């Protein structure tokens, strides 16, 4: 069930990458932001989205909240550097960034896909509860902090490059995939979800309460689907992440309630 959900989410990401306006050349909406203030910028983008489903946003310069709560069926192609909280509360829409993202990409996103062809800053996928974030390059610190899942909703973040420290801090659910090397303190306070690593952590880097092992058969379908989505999105930009998913490692909490006894009387 959950695996199927995953495949679905990963499928959406592929769809987003494939059907985004820029790639398809079918854009009818276009907005150039320049140095516009974020309030004005978001108004322009919303206005353009009211008339069409796919909008190309040019010359973005640190405007915050672009694609905020974008619903399913809508997509943004962003050129330049979008500001913090890109795609916050994303609700099924698709965002493709042809450049780098800043901090808090996909803050509290609920559904949909964000594809970044560069690197992103700190706290990506903060409290994310659904949808997929695919990042070609590195990410900053605290990616996936406090991700969560519920029933069929299981968010996923795929980082092709390295990750900063505190990856998956307080992670309560969802999936993080790291193609490069993460910084220290991976999964501090993690009590749910799973982190897939191409390169295993040395024993002393595994935090208390976490278990690292080779992926099991039950992991392979969802890992393979996410790797395929990544490879599809960034096919022309470098070597693929995929290959043999069976050679990857997974990091999980040893117990669902690691702090259960902490406040016990």
């Amino acid at each position, binding site marked *: 069930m959950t695996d199927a959900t995953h495949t679905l989410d990963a499928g959406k990401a592929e769809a987003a990458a494939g059907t985004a306006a820029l790639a398809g050349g079918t854009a009818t909406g276009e907005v150039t932001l320049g140095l516009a203030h974020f309030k004005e910028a978001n108004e322009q983008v919303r206005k353009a989205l009211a008339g069409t489903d796919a909008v190309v946003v040019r010359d973005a310069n640190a405007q915050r909240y672009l694609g905020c709560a974008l619903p399913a069926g809508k997509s943004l192609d962003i050129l330049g550097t979008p500001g913090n909280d890109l795609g916050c509360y994303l609700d099924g829409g698709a965002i493709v960034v042809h450049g780098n993202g800043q901090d808090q990409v996909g803050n509290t996103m609920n559904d949909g896909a964000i594809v970044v062809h560069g690197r992103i800053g700190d706290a990506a996928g903060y409290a994310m509860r659904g949808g997929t974030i695919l990042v070609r390059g590195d990410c900053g610190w605290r990616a996936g902090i406090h991700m969560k899942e519920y029933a069929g909703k299981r968010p996923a973040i795929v980082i092709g490059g390295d990750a*900063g420290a*505190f990856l998956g801090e307080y992670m309560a659910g969802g999936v993080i995939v790291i193609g490069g090397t993460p910084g220290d303190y991976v999964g501090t306070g993690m009590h749910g979800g799973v982190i897939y690593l191409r390169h295993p952590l040395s024993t002393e880097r595994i935090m208390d309460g976490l278990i690292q092992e080779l992926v099991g058969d039950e992991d392979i379908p969802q890992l393979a689907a996410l790797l395929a989505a990544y490879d599809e999105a960034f096919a022309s930009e470098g070597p693929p992440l995929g290959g043999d998913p069976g050679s990857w490692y997974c990091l999980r909490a040893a117990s669902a309630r690691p702090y259960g006894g902490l406040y016990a009387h």
Partner: protein
Amino acid sequence: MTRRNIPREGEVRIPSGCAIAGIMDRSGARHDGGDILRSIALMHDRSNGLGGGFAAYGIYPDYADLYAFHIMYESREARAAAEAYLEHFYLCEKQERIPTEEHPAIKNPPDIWRYFMAPHPMRLAASGLDEAEYTMQHVFHINGKIEGAFVASSGKDMGVFKGVGYPEDIGEFYRIGDYEAWAWTAHGRFPTNTPGWWGGAHPFTLLNWSVVHNGEISSYDANRRYVEQFGYDCELQTDTEVITYLFDLLARRHGLSQQMAAHIMAAPSWREIDAMEPDRAAFETALRTVYASALVNGPFSIIVGSEEGLLALNDRLKLRALMVAEKGPMVYLASEQAAIQVVCPDAENVRSIEGGVPFVVQRDDVAAAKAGEAAENRAVRDWPLEHEVGVLPRKRREA
């Protein structure tokens, strides 16, 4: 001029981030303030109009050997008192109002003057102090004892232009486009604990040091008590001030490299030290023990300017964002990547400053001079993140 009746640092607490930026030309070539202004302006929404400012290095080549004091006065009496005091202790080559331009967004600016001065030779000799120490004490006297006078900067061939307003407006008010500097830093303020007033804006300075800071230091009182023991008066009760004094204490007085000073302030955790090989662990343990009270905790990202160049540092847990990029001899720093790209669209090596890892960029001539001095003074870029001062115990001989 009337004295403004607004609360000072420490009298009010406003629970509420900041923007910082820095641009430096390693070659020492000077550039006007246009780029730093555009860079900090892009991050407008990180500040709230209660403080903005710029530090510029290399702006007074004609007076490079003299202390350049920028002083803000809230009353004529304050200026009279401060000038009488300075006249006693310094020989003043030139004094003038700092040129400013009326700006609709800048209200009630103080009267802002600059002085190019040398310490009075006899009084300096009689004080038994070196020039820097002598100057530091007089800065503290003016800030602490002369009401309505505040020394905004007191270094050589550098100056700080700051005040209450958005940084882009403050920059226009001071006409920073008219100055040429090899290093610029900028700050947009979103005061968290304290009200905004002209003296309290960033950069904070002492001698050639300037610090711009985004964050809030939870170790403030421990750090303050520590530096106060060495004669640093923390008049302003803000965390940025104490960081400035820590750099002065560790680098100027204790003779450590700037990188080492930053390393002490963002020391490795005991967990990391436990995992080090024994010699290195002993060294780090000694550092943390001797300089326990210089450890800075809480979220911060800072850019420190000095006659050597720029230094950027994030707290160990990286609770603030700071990006760096390069292009030829130019180095760009900013809280947000877009603020770099807006002034240098083809910047290279765009990356973030890691938590607790000092990023040091020295002017080429400084690096070359250091390389010529001694082994421990090689150019920082040749030994990133390492520091050998002969303190590290010799390798044990295997029996």
